Each structure stands twice: as C-alpha cells, then as structure tokens.
C-alpha cells in the first residue's frame, strides 16, 4: 500500500513541475514575518526559489529579476492548515451534486471501510476550494467517514489542479475511527471497544501469519483481507488512529485502548478534554479541537467549553485547531479556521500558540513539518501575506502562495458578487 501511495506522491510532484519551469524567484519584502518555527522577524524578507523557501530573515540579498511582493506593514505567515475537513468531497451536501456519490462517506462492510481513501474522490473543480485558498488556507486535511472505521485521511494542497493526486501532499495521514452506536454498529460502549480489540487481535494475527492466511490455515478473521492489510500500519504504530470522542471517561478509555495496543492515537473533538488534560498530555496524544462552542450539545459533550484549547495546551498537550464552530455544517466555510484561532486566543490560548495550532502543529502531527507549516529554508513555499493580524475579521489575505505559485482565477462567489454590484444586473460577463 505504501509503495502505491509514494508513487502517487511522485506523480503529484511531477504534475506540478511544468508550471514551475524556469527558475522563478519571488521576494516578499519588508513585512513582519512569523516563521512559527522561530521568533517573528520585523522588516523581514522571505525569498522563494522554484517553489521552495530559499531564505528567511532581515538581511536577505534579493537576486536580480526576482518578482517582488512589497509586504511593508503586512504580516507574513505560513499558509494555514485546516486539518479536518471534507473539502472537495461535496458541492452541496447531496449525492445529486456528485454523480450520485457521497464522496465523503464509504459504506464499508460491517462498518469497516479501512481501505477507503476519501481524497481520491476529491473534485478539484469544487467551488469551495478557491474561496478557502483566497482566505489564506493553503492545505487541508481531508477525511471521509462511514462507520466504525471510516477510511484513511490525507493532506492536500489547495492548488489549482485537474486531478486529486495533483493536490496531494500526504496520504495516508491517519486511519479514521468512528464512535457511537450508529457508526460502529455496536450497541454498548464495551461492545464497541470489544469490537476494536477483536479486530486488532485479528490484524496482529494476520500480520504474523500472512502465508498461512493465504493457504487458509488460520482461524477465521472477522473482516476482509483488504481491511486487515490496511490496518497493519495501525497496529504497527505507524499510521495514527483518529478517534472522535467527547466524554471525559471515553477519552480515558481511548487512551487506555491505545496504550494496550501500542497505537498512535489522535483525538478529534474531545469536548471534555480539558477535564482529563493531564492524561492526554502525558499520553502525548494530539487533539483536534475547536474553540468556539460552549454548548452541551449532547450528553457526551456536557462539559464543552471555549477554553478547551487553552487548558489542554497549558497542560502540555499538542493542540490542532479545527473549525468546528465556524463551518455552518459544510465545507463552504473551511476558510473560517482563522476565526476559530482568534476565538481560541479570546479564550486563553496565546496568539503564538494559536498560529502554531493552525500551521506547524498540524504539520508536525501529520508528519509533514519538513515541507510545510513554517517559514524555513527548504520548506515548500506555502506563504500568506496578510493585510494585518490574520485572525482579525478586517484582515485580508493579499497574497497566497502555494508551492510558490499564486492563483488568480475568480471564484464563483466573486463572480456572483461582481455581477450583482449593480442592480439590476447586466448579465454580461465582465
């Protein structure tokens, strides 16, 4: 499996090369640069060559012929990463918008869709992608769903492309686990965990006895060979398992389960995480959480509060901010991740930590910090020049570079806006 994916990665890189033909140099000059990996640099320059960051600092020599972006008075940050979206998988929430498919949700068998790679269903022409990019989000995690195991998650760059693979930055990033009776096909908490234990016991047995399995001389396993194979990296502790749990006691159960099986665990939502923050931090388990809800939306999330991110961070946990409170239920507003970050600050997270939680922290957690998430030499040039503080509503992303490239295509939303700036509209394209 991994070989296949690395081949795709190579293909993705190859696909981007033609547009980068010829050494292109971009110099973003004079801005306040927030590398995230280090302290901010006043009057700094970010030099980009062939889509990579070639230099960052206050004394950077700018080569002849470089395209200059004057960032005086502006803020320069890494492109934002929203780690948990289904961007590109749905245009209007209905299968009718996508040829009858719900690309974010696999049916699986017995609630197990371990081989499902949702990212392959991304429509690069999805109209929400451009508005997301225009507000400074350069990479998004794409997750599917579909049951107790909802498939493998991925990270994509929001480049203009004609294929999903041309957007891919890393796949897989994690295996997605569901929680709760409807998704897991179980009726009680212990039945759920027991199903996991039996499943992972099967995977371990399969992993050590592949040859015997092929000749039919193992005991019967509860799921398909494809699922068993896909779960091997999970029991090896190589591919993280993402579980979506809210109740404090369920979080502890998840931590215990992960310890028992030596799993690399990620926690999503974790509404009551602040109540067991020490345990989460001690287990070195990252949390993917929002910062904008204090509503006890379910009996499992009674302790939900806006200070969750700040309290978890204060306890030493790795916090990745995701836009739960701002999505309006769709990927229309993946762009609002910066509002989530600003609210996290309002409720106790430091500004630097909030920026990290939407840049370097998700990059580190997903194992791509060597290429994105910070402004350092050698990283891919996913860079945003903001008119001011990126979390403020009044701030706009004036230049968004992804792998050193900018994209000027007007979004559908922009075209509608321009058409109706005068009423009645002329119906003539600008």
């Amino acid at each position, binding site marked *: 499996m991994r070989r296949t994916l690395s081949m795709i990665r190579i293909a993705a890189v190859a696909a981007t090369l033609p547009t980068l033909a010829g050494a292109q140099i971009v110099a973003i000059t004079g801005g306040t640069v927030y590398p995230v990996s280090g302290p901010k640099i006043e009057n700094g320059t970010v030099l980009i060559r062939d889509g990579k960051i070639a230099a960052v600092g206050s004394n950077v020599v700018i080569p002849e012929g470089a395209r200059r972006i004057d960032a005086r008075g502006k803020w320069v940050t890494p492109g934002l990463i929203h780690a948990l979206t289904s961007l590109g998988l749905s245009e209007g929430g*209905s299968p009718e918008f996508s040829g009858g498919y719900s690309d974010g949700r696999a049916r699986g068998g017995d609630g197990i869709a371990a081989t499902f790679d949702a990212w392959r269903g991304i429509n690069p022409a999805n109209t929400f992608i451009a508005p997301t990019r225009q507000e400074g989000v350069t990479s998004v995690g794409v997750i599917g769903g579909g049951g107790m195991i909802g498939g493998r998650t991925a990270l994509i760059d929001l480049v203009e492309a004609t294929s999903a693979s041309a957007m891919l930055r890393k796949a897989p990033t994690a295996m997605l686990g569901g929680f709760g009776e409807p998704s897991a096909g179980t009726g009680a908490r212990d039945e759920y965990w027991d199903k996991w234990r039996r499943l992972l016991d099967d995977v371990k047995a399969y992993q050590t006895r592949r040859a015997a399995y092929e000749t039919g001389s193992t005991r019967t396993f509860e799921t398909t060979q494809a699922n068993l194979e896909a779960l091997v990296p999970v029991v090896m502790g190589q591919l993280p398992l993402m579980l979506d749990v809210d109740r404090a006691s369920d979080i502890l159960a998840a931590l215990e389960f992960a310890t028992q099986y030596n799993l690399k665990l990620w926690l999503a939502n974790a509404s009551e995480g602040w109540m067991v923050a020490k345990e989460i931090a001690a287990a070195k388990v990252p949390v993917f959480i929002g910062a904008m809800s204090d*509503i006890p939306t379910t009996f499992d999330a009674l*302790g939900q509060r806006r200070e969750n991110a700040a309290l978890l961070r204060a306890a030493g946990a790795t916090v990745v901010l995701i836009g739960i409170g701002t999505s309006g239920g*769709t990927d229309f507003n993946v762009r609002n991740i910066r509002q989530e970050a600003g609210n996290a600050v309002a409720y106790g997270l430091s500004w630097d930590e909030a920026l990290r939680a939407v840049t370097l922290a998700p990059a580190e957690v997903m194992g791509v910090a060597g290429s994105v998430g910070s402004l350092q030499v050698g990283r891919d040039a996913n860079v945003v020049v903001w008119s001011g503080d990126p979390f403020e509503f009044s*701030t706009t992303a004036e230049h968004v570079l992804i792998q050193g490239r900018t994209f000027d295509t007007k979004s559908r939303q922009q075209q*509608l*806006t321009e058409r109706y*700036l005068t009423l*009645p509209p002329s119906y003539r394209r600008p």
Partner: protein
Amino acid sequence: MQSLRPLLTLTLAGLAALPSPVLRAQAAPAAAKPTPAPSAGAISRPNADPFPSSYQPFPSRPTVLRNVNIYTAAGPLIRNGAVLLRDGKIAAIGATVDVPVGALVIDGGGKFVTPGLIDTHSHLGVYPAPGTAAHQDGNEATAPVTAHVWAEHSVWPQDPQFPRNLAGGTTTIQVLPGSANLIGGRSVTLKVVPSRSVQGMKFPGAPYGMKMACGENPKRVYASRGPSTRMGNVAGYRAAWIGAEAYRRRWDAWLANPTGDPPARDLGNETLAEVLRGNILVHNHCYQADEMMQMVDVAKEFGYTIRSFHHGVEAYKIADVLARENISASIWSDWGGFKMESLDGIKANVGLTHVAGARTIVHSDDPSYASRLNQEASKSLAAARTAGLNIPAEEAIKWITINAAWALGIDRQVGSLEVGKNADVVLWSGDPFSVYTRTEKVWVDGALLFDRADASQRWRTDFELGYVPTAGGIR
C-alpha cells in the same frame, strides 16, 4: 401599523359586550332559556393574548457606564461617552451624564458599549441542548399548513443555550417554528432571562410573528402527500390565505355586531386572519431571489406584508426590491453551499443588501452563532469592504440591533441606546467587531444579568445542575 387603530377600538368594544365570567357561571344550561353567551375561549378576537407575558424586570440599581465608546445604533459612535441606566431605562447618554446619588459607576477604561443584541431567527427552547429526540419540538411536521401551532408552547425555559446566548450579549430573540411547513405557526419574542415558564420570558407588548417557508424544505417533507413542487408550495399558501380571508371577514362582521352565536373558532385561521389585519408579522424563510419575488406577489394578492425574509442567501440579487417593498432581510454572514437553493450564497450578501437600502439583519438560526452575533456582523462588514463597499461600523451595528428590533416590531422599546428605551446594554472588553473581544457585562432592563467577572452569579439552568461542569470542573 397605523391602520390598525380602528380594529383595536373595535376589539375593546367587543370586549365590553362580553358577559363577565361570574354571569356566565350562573347561567344554567336549559333548553327553554336563551342560548348562553359564548365563553371567552369561543371568541376569535384580534390581539387576543391568552398566554400573557408575566415577565418582570429583575432588580436593578442606577448604573453609570463612563469612559466608554458607545455604538448607539442610532447615530455616530460616541467616543469616551457615558450612559445612565435607571429604572430599567436609558435615562441619559452622551459625552457625559449626571451621576445620581447612590448610582453604581463603572469606568469602562475605553471599552465599548452596544445595545443588547437581537436575533430574529432563533430556535432556542424548541430545539434545546442537549439534542435529544424528546426535545425536537420545533417542527409540527404533520401537515404543510400548521398556522394553529405556537412556538411558545414548545419552549423549554431550562434550555442551557439561553444563558449562553445572554453571555454573548444577545438579550432578545425571536423563537420560530422550523421550516418544514409552508406555514409553520406563530413565533414568540423572548427576553433571554431565567424563568420557570416561557410566559416569564415573553417580551411584553411584542407582536406575534408567523413563520412561512419557501422552497426545498416543505416540498421535501411533504413529497409523498404534497406539496411536492414549488408550484405546489405556492398553491398551498394561496389556499390557506383564501380560507383565512373568508374567516377574517366572518369574524370581523360578528365582532362589529356580536349578536347570536359567534362563528366557529379556528386556531389556524385565527393566526392567519391576524396577519391579514396587520397584527402579526410575517417571517418568511426563503433562499432564492425568484421565490422571494413570488412571495411578494402572494402577499400583495392577499393584502398582507412580509416583515422579513429569513436566510435569503440571494437577497443581494433583489435588494432593491426589498428596499422598495420595505421588507427586511434576515440573513447569515456566510452560510451557503449546503443545498441547491443555497448554492449562490456569498459573503457580501449582507453588504450588498445594505447598500441597496434594504433593512438588513444578520441572524443566526444557530445557537452558537447567536452567542457571537457581533462576530457574524464583523465578517459581513469585512466582506462588504472586500467587495469595495465602504460601510461604517456605526451602520453595521444596526444589523444585529435596531434593524432586528424593527423586524420584530419592538424597535420603539429596544435595539438602540436612546433616552427612554429599555436598558438592554452590553459592555464589551474591546471593539465588538474584533475577534478578540468578549462580553464583560450584560444588562436587561437595567438589571445586570451576566457578569464575566463573577462566576458565582452565573445563570445556570435547572438542567445544568449536576450535569454541566463549572469552570472548576465540578458538575
């Protein structure tokens, strides 16, 4: 609303003609005697109020906020100004105010003050948290026209979302039935205050609203029995209004001359007749521009007015028409793309609608959004500026205050900080258009009901006791 005066007079006359309950109790039902007069419950009376507000303002003391920047929603920002809250009202506002003896004086230190925020589209109490099947009380989805239901009869005052809205500075909300039905029933305007009953939250004197819904929701819900199409939707509204108009004429005739048996009372037609008389305000869920234009014509056909289109993701396409027809637009800052009829949602919707002269409102339809309406307005303001529309913040504050108050028919009482109006006031930690700003204190009718600095006085609903942990982690 001026034209309603004769009807109100007539109502009072009708009341005077009714026998007292005592007399009715004495009247024995005997065949030989004259037919007893109808009980009050048999009369379909304009402006009847069978579930009257029992709201009483909470105890307050004269309070002066000084050294504050005030978005009044009635004019320019007052920098370093002051406001006096006394006896539940705004007693003075300006650069300085006289401080009465014994008044509490709060030095804002350059912080900001706004009117209490108003949400025209809430489902608090009818879709409470936690979301359980037992509390899905917002849609009487049993028939396409359920004008007979009243949202207030579904409101659970212990919904923990109420204190969270208040903590966000939202002091008045309109709770609407859902959008499953063509005509979903009456809304109710509530003060966001603790109470044992919904009556104790009802905004005194607020007119009722009535929910209507266009488009995909009704035809999806009733696909098997009809309406299953948009043309079926419109036929459904018209059929309802035809029946209501006949009902109104029958009753108005009887009320003018209340002799003999009254006509049969019908709760649904009663609400619809009140719309036709102008006593109930129509709140029409409608996404698409073309459908809103059709609803304008339906309203004209039957002689009622639409007070506000709700959601209106395409309001920007017909903003000039909304301005001309004096219909407000209750719209989201940035929702769209979640179904076919919302595909044309744009972030500049609020700004474009505003500059066309229509009364524009940023609404929530979401308990979380309703606890930060200031941020929603701020996003709309920023999107307007990105689109090249230069709208001052003093105007944008109206989207979540006075314009919303107008849509609910309570703009004489609340929605702006002017002398004589109710002292619904929010003190913010900074400019409310900043993402970093939080509410610090919230007053309703001059009473301090939320104070971020004093967790011990925090309103906790009955539900929360033993369930929802406090900041200290104690359940």
